[in-house]
């Protein structure tokens, strides 16, 4: 397969997955923002959403205040923001258009229809109900994956699409976890300041909604209940999203799948990627949630993000950047 084709497949998948995860993140923030809470905390949570995507500076060059309306506008519609949902869906569709011959016509038509429907949504300018739009984005991304699994040959093209999806997903799950966990920390500080720490009931009530929303954002609320049959406890939430091998969006699950996918597309430069992935897998396999919490969740996630992004870079070098002419 042409390196350029592989590149387009990979980015088509990454942008689709990014659109979906952005929608998930926005949705969870939107939902939690409807809960009764101090105004500072509200602003804080929208700000976090920008910082985890490293978009705060770009945002502030466009808007004066960080609030729900502005962040939603920036993260959904703003075309100068490369991570906005509109930008991601556009990039996914443009990449698909270049290699439409390498995906089935059903996959292409799914991507194309998503884009065409989005045009209509944009024209209608119906921005009153973000939840509906965000649900639609998730649904279209699910459809893309379903059509891909249902119609494509299990060949190189299929593997490159999946590699793109999983690298993006691992990155996004880690980021969602990090933001929400930091939220939790700042919430505790706020609570201590405002209520003198004596409002335990109100606190746990809020905790529940906060963590439940996080779980919902990665479609894991029912899964959590099923696995733990327990209250929603931060540590178990983190454990589920990092270590659970069966949970499709967990870090371990993404890494494991990446290992088998790389084996399918092996070439003479893929050894280094296999080594890095193996190392990452081992570091997860021989750790547990207590160790992570001792180390500090934030530090753990930062280190994971660094590793997974290094792997993505190595992957680009080995497969996507046209090999030198020798």
């Amino acid at each position, binding site marked *: 397969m*042409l390196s*350029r084709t592989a590149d387009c497949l990979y980015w088509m998948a990454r942008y689709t997955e990014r659109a979906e995860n952005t929608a998930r993140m926005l949705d969870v923030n939107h939902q939690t923002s409807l809960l009764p809470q101090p105004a500072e905390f509200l602003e804080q949570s929208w700000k976090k959403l920008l910082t985890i995507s490293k978009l705060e500076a770009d945002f502030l060059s466009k808007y004066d205040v960080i609030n729900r309306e502005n962040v939603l506008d920036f993260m959904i519609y703003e075309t100068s923001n490369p991570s906005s949902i509109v930008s991601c869906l*556009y990039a996914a569709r*443009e990449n698909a258009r270049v290699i439409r011959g390498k995906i089935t016509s059903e996959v292409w038509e799914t991507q194309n229809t998503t*884009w065409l429907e989005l045009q209509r949504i944009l024209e209608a300018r119906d921005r009153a109900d973000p939840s509906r739009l965000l649900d639609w984005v998730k649904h279209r991304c699910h459809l893309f994956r379903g059509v891909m699994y249902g119609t494509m040959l299990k060949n190189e093209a299929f593997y490159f699409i999946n590699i793109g999806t999983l690298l993006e997903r691992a990155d996004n799950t880690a980021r969602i976890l990090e933001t929400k966990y930091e939220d939790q920390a700042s919430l505790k500080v706020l609570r201590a300041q405002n209520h003198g720490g004596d409002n335990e009931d109100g606190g746990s009530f809020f905790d529940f909604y906060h963590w439940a929303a996080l779980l919902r954002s990665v479609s894991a609320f029912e899964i959590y209940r099923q696995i733990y049959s327990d209250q929603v406890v931060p540590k178990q939430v983190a454990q589920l999203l990092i270590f659970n091998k069966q949970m499709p969006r967990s870090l371990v699950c993404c890494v494991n799948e990446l290992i088998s996918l790389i084996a399918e597309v092996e070439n003479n430069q893929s050894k280094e990627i296999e080594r890095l992935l193996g190392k990452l897998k081992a570091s997860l396999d021989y750790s547990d949630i207590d160790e992570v919490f001792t180390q500090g969740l934030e530090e753990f996630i930062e280190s994971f993000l660094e590793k997974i992004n290094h792997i993505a870079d190595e992957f680009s070098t080995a*497969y996507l950047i046209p090999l030198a*002419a020798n």
Partner: protein
Amino acid sequence: MKLPFDEMLDAAGKARPHYQIFHSWLKQQSDTLMGLKRAEADLIFRRVGITFAVYGDDLGSERTIPFDQVPRIFAAKEWEQLEKGLRQRVKALNRFIYDVYHEEDIIKAGIIPAEQIFNNAQYRPEMRNVNIPRDIYAQIAGIDIVRAGEGEFYVLEDNLRVPSGVSYMVEDRKMMMRLFPDLFQKYRVAPVEHYPDLLLECLKSVKPDDVKKPNVVVLTPGMYNSAYFEHSYLAQQMGVELVEGKDLFVKNEQVFMRTTQGPERVDVIYRRVDDDFLDPLSFRSDSTLGVAGLLSAYRAGNVTLANAIGTGIADDKSIYPYVPDMIEFYLGEKPILNNVPTFQCRKPDDLAYTLANLDKLVVKLTHGAGGYGMLVGPASTKAEIEEFRAHLIANPDKYIAQPTLALSTCPTFVESGVAPRHIDLRPFVLSGKTIKMVPGGLTRVALKEGSLVVNSSQGGGTKDTWVLEE
């Protein structure tokens, strides 16, 4: 003035024999239904992405080429004659291109003046005495044909460089079958969907001699080219790679593509990039669409280009007037298809005649394409004619003139209902081991009333073209 020939109706307003079934079918269809079908067609074209990008417009803005639901129908007999003429013409054109890069017999015989060839910007000295597989230069030819009357066909233009439109021929058929399946039970329409198979067979048959299993690719200028859909479509249908210049490189006079498994040899390139942009080392050095060193690999015989470099010499409008002579010279046969009588403005007499009759003639740039840089006398204002006259006097060598043909019309859906609109036809002729064609071609229609310009860049549409089986 005599009305132009109508494909469906005769002078008395009665349907011609091969249109009778369609005509009575059409009368039974309600306007509402046809309107719905039209909207459905547009929706499908958009969803499938049979569109081209509009330059300088908003993010991702695209257009579809209007598709008309009234097919252009050929009776079997008429097509048979047309096909014979096309095969004959393309055969002679390929012989001609070989000749001007080798023995130059046609010049020696005094049929075409030497300066007409060697001073022509389309002549590529790089191709002199270069031998290519089967001596075939234009593997893919798109010949533009118009009809002026019963059995009266004229060749308007020979497109021998990178003719496009064949994907619309196939997609229009699919669309008709989808919208009106019942019509295909009433008519036996010869299929055209196997065109990509014929194309692949043709391309493989002109592989370099020493290659056993040729690796064929389609070379595109990229997704912003207006024909990108077609490039991608043909590559997919043939099951070959669609490459851009940056995917290829030349080493030791061999062409390779960059793949995820390392370099892979390429043997036949169906290129949809113009000569000028093919190789920055030999042609335009600012081209980013081509492959450095491609010409050297080509001249060494290690890769086949389809079409060959330098075919433009045969589709230049200044060479066009000689095509009937070529047919007699190379094949010893009478030309089956007519040329449109052509005045060569480089000749003083022809120029004088042209200047005196600008309001009646069509004047074209010899190197022009796509309906640009031309004057349609009868359809132009006084001011436009005068402006054009100045260009013509300044550069007579660059122009030819032809009488305005009464192009045939075909009923077409327009805002006011069904009305006659002028049409032409571009059949595609494939030359490899043998000459092959699918029965039919792309019918283009000028949607503006009275307009003779059918190019999609000038607001033309397309129709499905039916060749009936006996």
